[in-house]
């Protein structure tokens, strides 16, 4: 029973990180239907910048700020130079551009930081709360709470503000939005920026929770984010959040009871099964679609 509860706590923490990364992914995916292969690598770059600045200045807040600004700026740059020129092309084309952008960012990071795995740059005290016989780290709790808050803020922004309405308009019809006086280019730019900022928060929590920062975390995040966004239903931020948590739980229990070598196999199997069972995702609404 204890083992079970401990896995539950671990799964929830990992799931919250996935949820954060996935919410960032889903903001872009939902609004633009764009398979953004670079998402993971953009926040990976941000996390590396956070690490570099924190190590250099010993100031974690400055590091967080730089990390967030860097990923936001990088996302906007990638949008401007890789995605905007091909926005009107066949949907395969931006996907390939995104993959190219992901390769570029990954290799620049490799050249700058090498392929080593780095520890979390600041020493953080280990705080625990003991509930009965299971031990929950304060960070596990904090990750969950922050993820929940960010998800609620994004949902609020999208549903209740003028900006959110503009995003919804752009997502439905770019030409009409332009005619209604919405600056489509800056809205799209902003969507990518927002996605990357949420992503980098997830990336920094990832670094904190696993005490490691490495090049591969980018692609890993892209896939987990995509899986959670699809399982949760495209464009459904709440669904994505829940799906991220479910993914973390399934992986935690799968690693514990089957084998940790097959952790990724389990998450891919989950998405295939869910899609066959519910093609619109667990929480997706039924949308009539024209091919």
């Amino acid at each position, binding site marked *: 029973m204890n083992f079970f509860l401990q896995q539950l706590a671990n799964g929830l923490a990992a799931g919250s990180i996935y949820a954060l990364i996935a919410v960032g992914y889903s903001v872009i995916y939902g609004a633009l239907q764009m398979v953004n292969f670079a998402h993971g690598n953009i926040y990976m770059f941000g996390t590396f910048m956070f690490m570099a600045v924190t190590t250099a200045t010993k100031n974690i807040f400055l590091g967080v700020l730089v990390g967030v600004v860097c990923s936001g700026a990088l996302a906007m740059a990638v949008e401007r130079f890789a995605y905007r020129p091909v926005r009107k092309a066949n949907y395969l084309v931006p996907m390939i551009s995104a993959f190219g952008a992901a390769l570029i960012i990954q290799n620049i990071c490799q050249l700058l930081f090498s392929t080593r795995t780095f520890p979390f740059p600041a020493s953080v005290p280990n705080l625990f709360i003991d509930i009965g016989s299971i031990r929950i780290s304060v960070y596990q709790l904090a990750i969950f709470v922050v993820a929940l808050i960010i998800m609620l803020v994004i949902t609020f922004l999208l549903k209740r503000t003028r900006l959110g309405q503009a995003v919804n308009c752009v997502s439905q019809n770019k030409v009409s939005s332009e005619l209604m006086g919405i600056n489509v280019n800056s809205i799209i730019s902003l969507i990518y920026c927002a996605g990357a900022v949420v992503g980098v928060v997830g990336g920094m929590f990832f670094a904190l929770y696993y005490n490691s920062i490495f090049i591969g975390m980018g692609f890993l995040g892209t896939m987990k984010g995509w899986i959670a966004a699809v399982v949760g239903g495209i464009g459904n931020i709440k669904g994505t959040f829940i799906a991220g948590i479910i993914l973390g739980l399934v992986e935690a229990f799968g690693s514990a009871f089957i084998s940790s*070598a097959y952790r990724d196999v389990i998450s891919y199997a989950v998405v295939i099964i869910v899609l066959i069972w519910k093609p619109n995702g667990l929480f997706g609404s039924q949308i009539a679609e024209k091919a």
Partner: protein
Amino acid sequence: MMIKKYVVEHKSMLLLAALVLLVAFPFVISNAYYQRIFIMIFLYAVLAMSLNLITGVAGQLALGHGGFYCVGAYASALLIKSCGMPFTVSLIGAAIISALFGLALGIPCLRLRGDYLTLCSIGFAEIVRLVALHWDKLTGGALGVKNIPAVNLFGFVFKNNMQYYFLFLIVMVIVYIFINRIISSQTGRALISIREDEIAASAMGINLTYYKVLAFVVAAVLAGIMGAFMAAYLTYLNPQSFILDESFLMLQMIILGGLGSNFGAIIGAAILVFLPEAFRFLTDYRMLINGFLMVGLMAWRPQGLFGATTTTEAIVKKLIPPELVKTAESRGVENENS
């Protein structure tokens, strides 16, 4: 424009000339390194053409092609090594097993919308690779399979690069003709109509899932067969050869060559196999350049070098006499491209 017209008019002659050059090549240049590059080009050309059947012709973006390639390679290698089968039997075995995998993945996943299929196929390729990596007892794990016997077709054992060169060249030519025949058959037209508009296609009585699965399985079998040949040519296998980048490379080839163009797939394979070799001296920057190449190409020529010519629009244009099209245009009938 002049050149394009010339090429279109003399297409078969030019193809024949290219073939003659390819046949003459190993006799002129005996350097094993260059022959090896060409062998890899032929190998990837077949993989790209088969992926082109799914993605370019039928319009279904599957990114798990490396998975079928991996399945075929391992199936053949293990049938030879563990079960002692001759190469011909293992080749057929690899084809059948890849076909079964293609069916198992295709039947449920091809009912899904575009990007879901992409995700499922990536998941499939990764599952195959991770199982190959972790199921040590069957696949040898990270060390892979070593000492795979050479290709042995009905008693003829392939020994040197020159013989393999012709083997892969012949396979490529056969597959080229085969896929071209599919494209210009009734099946091919059904696939193209699915790419152009699924709803219209199903309204015309085309069984969407049947044709998609058909294309998927044909492509899977071709990839599996190439995997078997590749394993026997290289004599070793390990899961590292089937990382996701392989599937992306194949997709890149057909996009570069132009989606739906069979000839384009070969040219795309040739360019993308050759370029990294040419830039080998830039080891650290190779993938970086590859990334810039991808982004730049997409921005510069998103339809690829030999963009699809057999769209429904083109077919309709062929059927309607040009005078009629002209009068329709002069009356202001809009030609809507969405």
